[in-house]
């Protein structure tokens, strides 16, 4: 199941033995994909960078637990999602404690789309979709994000989440049902 070639396999093994040089090569390989995945998931460049940083540090210290049963990137995404959920929870707790409304973060470099109005609308739709995902349970968020954003197979998701393929199928089904319930008003109002 591992997509990695023999070189990458060797690299991972070197990282597992604490080789910092091999780790840097791995980071350079996966960092752009990880940042893109996290930016899509979080919708915030700063949050994506914070989560990516935390994830890569965890990757270095947890590398010895990687068993080559799924692709390394899917495993990295799983660590990143757990990190993101934790950071988001901490942030919400802080905002609640200090009674500050979560206004989100502006896009540092919004996408190049035809016009400002369309750009704004697409941004709004993206935010609604992200907030709908955030309303799901962590397990459901995990399966939806790994499947739809990362494009991981059921087998890989089952491996990183330590459960059977049947469980993943059922979680995906339920997560999609919930998303449908949450997003139906959006689909109707925006005529998407």
């Amino acid at each position, binding site marked *: 199941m591992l997509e990695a070639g023999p070189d990458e396999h060797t690299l991972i093994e070197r990282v597992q033995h604490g080789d*910092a040089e091999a780790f840097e090569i791995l*980071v350079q390989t996966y960092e752009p994909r990880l*940042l893109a995945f996290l930016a899509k998931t979080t919708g915030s460049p700063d949050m994506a960078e914070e989560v990516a940083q935390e994830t*890569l540090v965890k990757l270095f210290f947890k590398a010895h637990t990687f068993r080559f049963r799924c692709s390394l990137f899917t495993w990295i995404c799983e660590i990143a999602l757990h990190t993101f959920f934790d950071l988001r929870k901490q942030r919400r707790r802080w905002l609640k404690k200090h009674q500050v409304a979560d206004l989100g973060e502006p896009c540092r470099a*919004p996408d190049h789309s035809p016009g400002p109005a369309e750009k704004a609308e697409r941004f709004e739709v993206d935010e609604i*979709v992200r907030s709908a995902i955030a309303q799901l349970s962590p397990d459901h968020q995990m399966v939806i994000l790994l499947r739809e954003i990362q494009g991981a197979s059921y087998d890989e998701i089952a491996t990183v989440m330590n459960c059977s393929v049947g469980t993943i199928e059922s979680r995906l*089904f339920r997560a*999609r049902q919930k998303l449908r319930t949450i997003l139906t008003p959006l*689909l109707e109002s925006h005529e998407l």
Partner: protein
Amino acid sequence: MNCKTCQPLLSRSLDGLLVEAEQSDLENHLEACPACRKEWETQKKIQHLLHSLRDPMTARSVLPAVRLRLGDEEARRLWYDDLERLARRFVPVAAVLFLALSAFALFSTWNRLSRAPEIEWLVAQNGLEAVEPYSDLSEIVPEEPDGVPDSSIPIH
């Protein structure tokens, strides 16, 4: 196929996991059932929305920050490792000491209890009376007529 059995298949069909026969059954049902067809279209739209989520950022490497963090984490972990090694060395010693003290306490309690009848027998044989503890301090501390203790007697 009915609507109930169709629902889980919709999710698997979105991921392209149905075998030909299942896909054809599903399509036949969707042709005949407007409710399931609407559900299928909605699910397809949601999948499209998820796939078209945009990456709102310009790439900015986090590698320099990760290098710094790894240095800090490494130092912290080394400190924890030292602490753990120290604990690993002293925990067995502490456990042995604890067991020894517990055994000693048990033994002395057992010894005292087992010797109590022997002492009673000795007291009875020698016609001795068991010494009662003083219940009232006035028995040993003489009092002044007005009830104030004699200050000439030093109390330690």
